[in-house]
């Protein structure tokens, strides 16, 4: 809490001089603390599972411990058996090994989450930047900007879940359609954030300076304004990834997501849902725990990155931005 007045304009000029994406870079690369390390360690484990998860079951079999099962392999004589030395997490009602399925499932969940999030960033952010840049200028431009944002409003007022189910039902159940549905669901989030930042950034003195120097709209947006308008979008990415993982699981749970027998966490919970009522807890509990952990790790990452952003915002408001960040 400093109360000293800071000459903001001078600072903004100084900041814009030596690196336009300084804020973003500073946000992402800061000295890691213990919790930060834990969080990103968790993210690393998820990524690792995405790569090797489906091979762990078969690998255990090769290792000769009589406990390895493929994620889609059926042990028909031992359906719905509790956790044991052979099936660490038990088997579901069709005799699939819950342990190797839990390890295999993050692949599809994460691939869908990353693809959908990336697509909604790639489409949503430029739309938002455009809407923010052209809004409030010439009539036609303002109208376009308003149209984009009002469309986003309406998109957000739709019941997202059923909207996604409809898309999947109408266009056929496939991973690509699930990704597209989730992209549409998340577009408005990024468009809104990018627009809001662009609205403030475009009024900064360095924007005027660049304009006076004779830079065209294109160069102004892409070299000067855009890099300074994406911080909050980037900061939102982990949260959206977590949300998409949950959403995909929900879609699969009603049978409108990933098709069985592919191991997917929501689909696995669905398979075990009826067993929960009769007391066989393992087919649903384990994938649910995995799902919760995955999303929780991304929630922690989101919190961490939000804290960094606040720190950067505060630092940018100070005269000696560089040193105050170092001091932490």
């Amino acid at each position, binding site marked *: 809490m400093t109360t000293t007045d800071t000459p903001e304009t001078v600072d903004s000029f100084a900041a814009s001089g030596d690196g336009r994406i300084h804020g973003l870079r500073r946000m992402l690369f800061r000295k890691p603390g213990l919790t930060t390390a834990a969080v990103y360690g968790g993210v690393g484990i998820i990524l690792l599972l995405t790569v090797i998860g489906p091979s762990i079951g078969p690998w255990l079999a090769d290792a000769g411990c009589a406990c390895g099962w493929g994620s889609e392999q059926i042990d028909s004589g031992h359906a719905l058996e509790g956790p044991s030395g052979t099936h660490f997490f038990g088997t579901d009602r069709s005799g699939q090994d819950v342990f190797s399925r839990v390890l295999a499932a993050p692949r599809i969940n994460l691939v869908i989450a990353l693809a959908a999030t990336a697509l909604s960033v790639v489409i949503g952010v430029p739309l938002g930047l455009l809407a923010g840049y052209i809004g409030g200028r010439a009539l036609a431009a303002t109208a376009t900007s308003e149209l984009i944002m009002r469309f986003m409003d309406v998109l957000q007022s739709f019941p997202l879940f059923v909207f996604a189910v409809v898309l999947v039902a109408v266009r056929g159940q496939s991973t690509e359609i699930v990704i597209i549905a989730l992209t549409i669901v998340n577009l408005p989030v990024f468009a809104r954030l990018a627009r809001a930042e662009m609205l403030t950034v475009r009024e900064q003195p360095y924007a005027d300076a660049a304009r006076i120097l004779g830079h065209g709209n294109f160069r102004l947006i892409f070299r000067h304004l855009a890099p300074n308008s994406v911080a909050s979008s980037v900061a939102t990415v982990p949260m959206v990834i977590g949300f998409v993982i949950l959403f995909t699981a929900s879609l699969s749970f009603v049978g409108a997501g990933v098709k069985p027998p592919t191991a997917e966490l929501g689909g696995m919970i669905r398979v075990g849902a009826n067993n929960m009522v009769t007391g066989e807890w393992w087919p649903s509990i384990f994938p649910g725990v995995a799902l*919760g952990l995955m*999303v929780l790790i991304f929630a922690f990452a989101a919190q961490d990155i939000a804290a960094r952003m606040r720190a950067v915002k505060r630092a940018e408001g100070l005269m000696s931005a560089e040193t105050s960040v170092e001091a932490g």
Partner: protein
Amino acid sequence: MTLIAKGLNALLSPFKAMLSSPFIRRRLLFFLPQLFIVTIITFILLKLVPGDIVDVLLGGLSTEVQRNSLREDLGLNDPVISQYFTYIDGLVHGDLGKSFFTGQSVAHDFRDRLPATLEFITTALVVALLIMIPLGIRAGSPKQTGWTAKLDRALSKVVTFYGLLAGSLADFWLALILIFLFYATADIVPEPGGYFALGAEPEKTTGFNVIDSIIHGDGGALKSYVGHMVLPVATLVFVYGGPILKMTITSMAEIQSSAYVENARGMGLKTGTIRWMQFRNALPPIITIIGVIYGFLLGGAVLVERIFSLNGFGNYGVESVLQNDFLAAQSFMLVAAIWVMLVYLIVDIAHAALDPRIRL
């Protein structure tokens, strides 16, 4: 008589002031184009169905005559623009089409399901508010000194973690866990399935289960309802109370360090008094998040509805899609979207009521 008129006037005067505010007028005016875009999207949605919609709706075993007559009924032979106007005309007259799955008019199906779902999500929201708001106030404005200070700090750590956890759990999974714990293991709640035990339903008048139970004096029905709704409500409260709690804490904490709170503390005002001042100014973002959740839940409680076999509104939407009953799905989307827009409208009016600056 005049007394009643006076009373009414006093009650309505804030709302009259609202109506004269430019912000609210603009906001109300804005509602119409929104409605227009929503109908366009729901209209296009039906056109996205691949192949002949008539084939999809009637299924494989239909005769040419049936198909032609349905095509005629739906006006599919007309140009697209006039199809849209027929659609709007139907909507204005309360005609939402016919459900091929239930065999009823969609409007009839909605009358059947909406009240019970509204009752369900409203109960969950009210319970969530009663728990989360006081917790959030306490955790967001911890005492600085005294023996409760430590307690407050611990509380704020616990609830912050709970906020993260609630956002990370799938509501359908939590519902299953609760069933496993309280039905399959402890056996202290009735078997999940429906709003009532079989045969305990009250006579249907309003469609609101509690109200029906009460006006027919059916104590058994009310008891059965409460037993059946404990777990579904608890699920929604746990998962969707999280964001409300988080927002309350952040909003309170932001104001905690403001000059007027410091000043009030310096003047020696009681913590309770300061918290109340703080809370009033912390309200706008809290109201926004409550609105977002309430708007979402009408169609978004669907997974919880499915697990507890509640024949609710959201479940009707998903079921109609899965049964290829796209006319019903279309109307479901429309009603759910209008619900969200209405809730957001009320949120904006509430913001204007709280903060005179917005009313300009």
